[in-house]
């Protein structure tokens, strides 16, 4: 009973935040780009998102005749499912989480690996050359960046006494947030996580100036909407994960409840990821892969070695 209630709350909350992200992103982008942004639907344009949703639900649900129908329909659901599943292991506050598992972090990594199927299948099923190139880029990018993402997290696990439980990782940060001893790990995780969710500036599978819309070129209506919302859910997921792993999760001064601190920190990261999109150009595909394998991989390995050495030395 209690777990069902928490699941319902978490799902509702996550989807609301994802929808709010659309509005927040558009307003923040317009603020940084010296323009007004959506301001017509409702006060300060807050009804823009409901209006967009009504539009996207009512649009013709069109499947191109040359596409592989079954796969074409399945692809966008995958990204929604795996990102939502990942929220099962996020501790929002003490006692407020769906599952306190001892393999939580592995579950998160496994889900993010599955996300690549969404991109690859969408690109393949669309039977469009732009989609195909986008999907190929997406597959290579996500498979590579998973490696560093996993490795960069090992330092955090070590600091938590070898635990993969998110709750224990948060509790291990009572003295000091992980971001201080694990700064290189944090930076690599941040880059890898943005790459995993293929957000700008690492939106190479979409790359609107080059590949039109990349893997989802042929999608429209609610199926496009799933990719779209899936992207915002994964921004929320990344931000929540970063906060949990590196910024002490719900920990914060006692004058405000832990849940507030968690949300506050998460929103800062959401805004930061939006700022990344507003400010950075897109690297070229091969450059991006080269940076991953030649710079980020060695750093994450060295980070593990040094962390382990210090922990062993301290005993």
């Amino acid at each position, binding site marked *: 009973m209690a777990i069902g209630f928490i699941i319902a709350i978490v799902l509702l909350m996550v989807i609301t935040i994802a929808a709010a992200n659309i509005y927040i992103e558009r307003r923040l*982008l317009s603020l*940084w*780009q*010296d*323009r007004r942004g959506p301001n017509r639907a409702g006060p300060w344009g807050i009804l823009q998102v409901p209006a967009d949703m009504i539009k996207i639900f009512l649009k013709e649900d069109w499947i191109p005749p040359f596409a592989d129908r079954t796969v074409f329909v399945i692809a966008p659901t995958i990204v929604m499912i795996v990102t939502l599943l990942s929220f099962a292991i996020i501790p929002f506050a003490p006692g407020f989480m769906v599952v306190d598992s001892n393999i939580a972090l592995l579950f998160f990594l496994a889900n993010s690996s599955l996300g690549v199927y969404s991109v690859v299948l969408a690109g393949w099923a669309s039977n469009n*050359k*732009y989609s195909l*190139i986008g999907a190929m880029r997406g597959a290579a990018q996500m498979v590579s960046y998973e490696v560093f993402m996993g490795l960069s997290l090992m330092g955090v696990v070590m600091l938590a006494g070898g635990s993969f439980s998110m709750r224990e990782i948060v509790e291990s940060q009572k003295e000091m947030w992980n971001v201080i001893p694990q700064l290189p790990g944090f930076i690599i995780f941040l880059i890898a996580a943005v790459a995993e969710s293929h957000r*700008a*500036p690492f*939106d190479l599978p979409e*790359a*609107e*100036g*080059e*590949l*039109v819309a990349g893997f989802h070129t042929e999608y429209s209506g609610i199926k496009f909407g799933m990719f779209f919302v899936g992207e915002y859910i994964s921004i929320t997921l990344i931000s929540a994960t970063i906060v949990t792993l590196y910024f002490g999760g719900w920990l914060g001064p006692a004058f405000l409840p832990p849940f507030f601190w968690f949300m506050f920190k998460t929103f800062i990261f959401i805004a930061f990821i939006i700022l990344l*999109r*507003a*400010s*950075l*150009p*897109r*690297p*070229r*595909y*091969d*450059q991006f892969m080269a940076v991953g394998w030649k710079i980020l991989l060695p750093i994450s390995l060295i980070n593990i070695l040094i962390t382990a050495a210090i922990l062993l030395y301290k005993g």
Partner: protein
Amino acid sequence: MQNNSIISLLTERFGAEAIISQPTVDGIPTCWVDKSKVVDMLSFLKNEVSRPYRMLYDLTAIDERERSNRSVLPVSSDFTVVYHLTSYGRNEDIRIKVPLQGEYPTMPSITKLWANANWYEREVFDMFGIRFDGHPFLQRILMPRNWQGHPLRKEHPARATEMGPFVFTEDDRTAADEMLQFKPEEWGMSRSSDDADFLFLNLGPDHPGTHGLLRLVLQLEGEEIVDVVPDIGYHHRGAEKMGERQTWHKFIPYTDRIDYTAGVINNLAYLLTVEKMAGIEVPPRAQVIRIMLTELYRIASHLVWYGTFAQDLGQISPVFYTFNDRERVFDIISAITGGRMHANWFRIGGIAQDLPQGWQQMVADFLKHFPKSLREWDKVVMRNRIIKARTIGIGVFNTDEAIEWGATGPALRATGFEWDLRKKRPYSGYDQFEFDIPTGRNGDCYDRARVRVEEMWQSLRIIEQCMRRMPEGPYKSTHPLATPPLKERTMYDIETLINHFLGVSWGPVIPEGEAMIQIEAAKGSNAYYLISDNNTSAYRCRIRTPSFAHIQMVPYISRGYTIADLLAILGAVDFVLADLDR
């Protein structure tokens, strides 16, 4: 005489009977040569003569059959093919004309001599039906493949009302679709190499990265570009044909729409030539106002480029910043002219009206504000490491290649060659101003960007000098052909009244002759080659635009790079589709 020295060299080499020289208004040595000798002569001019004519600046044709007075031509000709060569060493041009007889003549191709002759010859074939023997791919370039007739021939109708109602049946649609199918074999491309099948990717005509209706077909191996085939003509509006139909005065608004980001710069290119033919001296105040507006438009054009260049590289914000400042430029322009992008403000012999009160303050405010923006964008765009990684060493060409392909403007200067027509052939009073010519070193995308950013600083310097030293005096010439003539004096003397009446009702009659004046437009060298047969409209109006030459070069500088690089290259080329197709 300096001007005729090249003619005497040619006479020495090919014999006096082979060359018939023709006087022109612009003083460019012009000679008529038989088609059997023209390839040798062009080859001599390009490769053998000292300080050679390395650039094929323009290649076009004239349908001479309906000239009101054909006896002015030194040689009888039905169609004349015109080669316009430029020598940077001499800072001189030469025009070679080839008379052709008959309805659908042929002549030898010079594609082996100049790489950029390819598109120009296709254009002449498309527009006039003149065939070039030895051309590798003589197909229509601007018109659809199934077009009937050749538009710039005099018998081809210029108005829709002369053409009968337009019908587009289902069969026509199928045929049109079929026509757009890309068949690699036609272009001599194979579908596979020894170890891979190529992917043919159709980029455009509607694509976010092509800035308009440009279609490029990419031959890809993985993401690497093996070859590119540009397919142009989607933006063709027949501006040259309209130039032969509208009066000299009424054609001015059409020029605004050639390079539509650069407004009155187009007016200037056209009017300098018209004024040369009419023998009009433009008063100093009008000249300085023209320069000021030209430089404001240069900034406006470069700002469009700056934002979209960053956008092409995936940076989404700078385009809003640059367009905001472009609006500041347009505020000044609209206060002066009432228009924004298509100001249509210059007139034969001057400008349309004097400057409004308070213009100094607006210009001064802009001069104060804009350097801050430029410095900020330098940090955001030009010094960004990812931008550098995306553009340095990409799309490289050197000075020789630039000249071979007819690249001008910032693209030429980015190769390290200091050449700016405003300095080298000062027109419209540019010699009165102090400014530098920014150059690059490597001729890559980054250097082309760098040069344009520096040009905006130089334009600011020029505008500042215009503001400080704006001369007093009339804003339009009192020459009888200045159009429309100054109204104030019409009620006081009969001559002005007559001129006013004729100039406004018929339009001015420009005396017989031909001229072409190159100017440094925002995107490169732009020129109008105008021929008058003593009439109220041009007999032939040829528009030489920089984008045409630059886009022709794109396949050459894109091979071996990736799709992402191609977009960086296109972004750094800075082209406008209307300027490409006209």
